[in-house]
């Protein structure tokens, strides 16, 4: 995760599909504001946004 953030441009997006078991971990990272609408996520974390794509949605 740190490497992904390091190589990401400011205002870039990390897109990830992970299993539901991963969600508690993802929620604990500083970069994750993912389950929010993208505009709200950007407002909260200008810089890095992790957009988690949940299968089936």
């Amino acid at each position, binding site marked *: 995760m*740190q*490497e*992904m953030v*390091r*190589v990401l441009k400011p205002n870039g997006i*990390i897109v990830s599909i*992970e299993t539901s078991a991963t969600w508690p971990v993802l929620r604990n*990272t500083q970069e994750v504001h993912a389950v929010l609408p993208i505009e709200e996520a950007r407002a909260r974390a200008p810089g890095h946004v992790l*957009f988690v794509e949940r299968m089936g949605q």
Partner: protein
Amino acid sequence: MADNREFARLDAQHRAIKLTQGEVNYLAPLAELLNAESDGSEEKVLDVGCGSGIWCVHLFSLLPRNAKLMVRITEMAAEFPKVSCLGVDLAPNWSGRSKVPSNVKFEQCNAIEGIPYPKNTFVVVHSRLLVSGVGLLLSCTIHH
């Protein structure tokens, strides 16, 4: 080292995920971001743990596998004409693919040890089901 059987499984997994997403390769606002960020220089997308590389190839390929896919991929190629995609994986995976578009390339690296590119290089970083295969990623995120 992954073999052809594993690549076939990963390709099938990709198709299954794509099916659940309504036959699209992504749900995030990538088009909005890539188009907005375009300043004439080549934009870059990184796929970490790219496996067989099918996401990169499907997303940016000019050589679709079938007619049904052709419209969508042609649209994608037209949508991202200046975008390049890099797929990295612990195992080399690109040798088995004969039709890799010119704006897609693959490199072998251990992303946990480091991605061999400077900071602020990529507009989009993509990964799928990486945690299940990379245990260290969990500790990295918990302690970040």
